[in-house]
């Protein structure tokens, strides 16, 4: 009996134990980061964690053009008796010289207020008073060097008094802030975005946005990997990043023909937060890729080992020559080389983060706008479009638009290995097999507005073999755009064209078409 008793008790405890230490969700590092030699790799990871943090402890790096969400406020009352304070009364919304009389001001002048929002875990930065200037309070001591890591523990709004309420902090502020000190609470969009991302996106797109969540392996096409900073459907130039509006549009409308569903009914703030979070993830991914790319060439494990070998030989020679004081060892050579990498890293990081910042800055994005309005959808226009189609598109999309052009039988070269793919067909930049769109089904992944199709033709589709055709149809830009519209008109017509013909010719050829009338998207 005792044995049974003990057994059950042990089992019960065993069942409880894993429950006590829930695992943290983590970012997955790029495979190339893992291929770096260990010390350099961990330096890169450290850098990355310092600049972007983890899903649980995210860093709002203000250099990045991400709207992390800011609430401005000021201290209105501090408990005088307490020699120290974790909490004090604050007021939101009326900060500095801004007037907050109109809530409906949309130009960003009106400072938003948190309302009932849960502010726990957000960062607080002091803008005036003793603590201003990015100083941080660490265990009650002021430390002018480091950046602010003070965090909010809770915020409770007064029922009667608008945007006033009690703000509690996780750390002690000693001495407490003075009445009238202004501060900013930063990161609610990042925090909210992370929570929404975890609920809606993570299981497909992965915690780090690598498109390799647990569900991903079952999906065709695979979920997007944001890390290279490439987005297929955008309104901007191919070399630009997508605008917030583009990302929103994809999230709202979904991508027809794929498993990306439409999240139309997300609230505006939810949508905004998700978009900001996705941008942030994409920046983190691209930042990592760029850092590694710069280091990979020299510090990949195999290369590095070879380099150490040869440097050791040279070092020994030098030692014999007398140009070197100490006899080098493998260890010391390694350290020397890694020291170089570590010395380089801050500069590389600085450089790449600035490149990234510029890339994602709105001013550096050019939205593609046709120079002429859409040509009326007439038979003549479609006929002109047909000619262009046959010349330019049929190679991939096929003469009848079924996505069965000659290209699907050709072999592509893998950019990574510089070798042909083992299978014929087209591959995208992520190394996944893709097919030219079957235009007869009337499904347009990037949107079905004329402007969407125009942009797809004009700028191509990022990351795929679909090339841009801007300026190709005519050297005159306006004429070129008009020709593009002809082509778009024709593309719209393809589903109805194939149906209009007797099903016989194409159906027998492709077997399965009888029923594939252009299904309703």
């Amino acid at each position, binding site marked *: 009996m005792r044995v049974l008793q003990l057994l059950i008790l042990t089992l019960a405890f065993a069942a409880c134990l894993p429950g006590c230490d829930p695992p943290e969700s983590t970012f997955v590092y790029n495979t190339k980061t893992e291929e770096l030699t260990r010390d350099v790799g961990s330096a890169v990871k450290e850098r990355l964690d310092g600049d972007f943090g983890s899903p*649980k402890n995210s860093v*709002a790096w203000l250099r990045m053009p991400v709207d992390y969400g800011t609430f401005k406020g000021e201290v209105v009352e501090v408990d005088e008796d307490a020699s120290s304070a974790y909490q004090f009364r604050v007021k939101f919304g009326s900060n500095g010289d801004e007037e907050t009389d109109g809530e409906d001001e949309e130009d960003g002048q009106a400072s938003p207020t948190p309302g009932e929002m849960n502010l726990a875990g*957000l960062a607080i930065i002091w803008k005036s008073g003793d603590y201003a200037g*990015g100083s941080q309070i660490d265990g009650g001591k002021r430390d002018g060097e480091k950046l602010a890591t003070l965090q909010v523990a809770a915020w409770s709004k007064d029922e009667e008094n608008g945007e006033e309420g009690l703000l509690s902090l996780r750390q002690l502020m000693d001495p407490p802030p003075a009445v009238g000190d202004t501060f900013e609470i930063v990161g609610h969009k990042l925090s909210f975005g992370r929570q929404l991302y975890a609920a809606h996106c993570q299981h497909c797109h992965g915690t780090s946005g690598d498109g390799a969540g647990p569900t991903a392996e079952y999906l065709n096409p695979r979920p997007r990997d944001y890390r290279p900073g490439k987005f297929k459907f955008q309104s901007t130039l191919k070399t630009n990043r997508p605008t917030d509006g583009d990302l929103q549009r994809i999230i709202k409308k979904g991508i027809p023909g794929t498993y990306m569903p439409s999240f139309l009914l997300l609230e505006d703030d939810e949508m905004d937060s998700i978009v900001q979070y996705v941008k942030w993830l994409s920046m983190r991914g691209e930042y990592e890729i*760029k850092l590694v*790319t710069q280091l990979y*060439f020299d510090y990949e494990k195999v290369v590095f080992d070879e380099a150490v070998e040869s440097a050791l030989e040279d070092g020994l020679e030098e030692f014999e020559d007398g140009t070197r004081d100490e006899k080098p060892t493998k260890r010391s050579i390694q350290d020397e080389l890694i020291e170089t990498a570590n010395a380089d890293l801050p500069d590389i990081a600085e450089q790449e983060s600035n490149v990234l910042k510029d890339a994602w800055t709105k001013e550096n994005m050019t939205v593609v706008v046709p120079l002429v309005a859409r040509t009326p959808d007439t038979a003549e226009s479609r006929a002109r479009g047909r000619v262009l189609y046959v010349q330019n598109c049929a190679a991939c999309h096929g003469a009848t638009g079924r996505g069965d052009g*000659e290209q699907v039988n050709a072999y592509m070269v893998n950019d990574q290995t510089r070798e042909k793919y083992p299978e014929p067909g087209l591959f995208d930049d992520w190394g996944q097999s893709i097919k030219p769109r079957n235009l007869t089904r009337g499904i347009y992944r990037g949107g079905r507005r004329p402007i969407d199709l125009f942009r797809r033709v004009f700028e191509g589709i990022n990351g795929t073999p679909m090339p841009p055709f*801007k300026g190709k149809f005519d050297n005159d830009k306006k004429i070129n755009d008009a020709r593009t519209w002809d082509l778009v008109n024709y593309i719209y017509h393809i589903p109805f064209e194939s149906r209009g013909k007797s099903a016989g010719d194409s159906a027998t050829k492709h077997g399965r078409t009888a029923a594939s009338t252009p299904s309703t998207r």
Partner: protein
Amino acid sequence: MKHVKVYLPIAVAALLLAGVSGCGGGATDVPTITVKPAEEAASPSTDVTPTNGAKTPGVVEPPPTTGGFGTFMGRVVIKGGGVESRPALVLKGKAALDPAVCAATADIPDQSLLVSADGGLANVFVFLKKAPKNGKDSLGTEAEVLLLDQQGCIFEPHAMVVRTGTPITVKNSDSKPHNVKTKPALGQPYDKSLNQNQTGELVYDRPEPVPVGVECNFHTWMRAYQLPLDHPYGVITKADGSFEIPNLPVGTHQFVIWHERSTRSLFSRFKVKIKSDGDVVKETIEVEAAKLTDVGGAKTKTIKLSLNR
């Protein structure tokens, strides 16, 4: 019946409840946020102040003050003779697309491995990763017209070293549409479709650590390599495998020697020591044939197309 047995399961039940509730329970997934300012404070976390020069493109180096310049020249040859020649990429008249233009009169050769009769390896990139201190910047800027032509569905030239900021004219001399597409690791990609005799301008904005592949999405076999550098110390070997890099400042240089058929560079730190002004270092660089065929082999990722069936 002993009473103690009755209490055992109660205890277990209570423990289980306590265990699960105490831990998993309402565990929230609200992240904590830390702010990192846009500009790092006066002294960043690392105590090493960057002193290495030539980090950012466009920084003009001070003119050389000491030493002088030497030359590094030599040949890249295949060790132990040649390798078997690569089969043609596209046989005459057998092009998957546009057979009227591509390989219409002759096979399209595989230019990825060009070996001369005496074993010289062409199209090898020999370059310095970073500009050396005291280097000359003026070199290589003589007004040569850089042209990337597409003729008979072949990129011409196949390999090219280019200075950042220097425009390359891309051109389509064929009667069928082409496009020119680059996917550099660091800089801006380029992608332009061209009709016959249309031209475009390809400019690299950043130096790259490895040569950039150039492709045409219409004709998947078309491929070229271009290496943008922000300094003049990079060349490609000629048809006989020879190359010459002049104006190397005195000192030790570590050259990268790279060929497209090798996954990694052939040599990542090929040391060249210029001892004094006017010094000419001559090297015959031997490359094992095996290194040139290992591309792709093991590293090719097989893409799973179907899901389960």
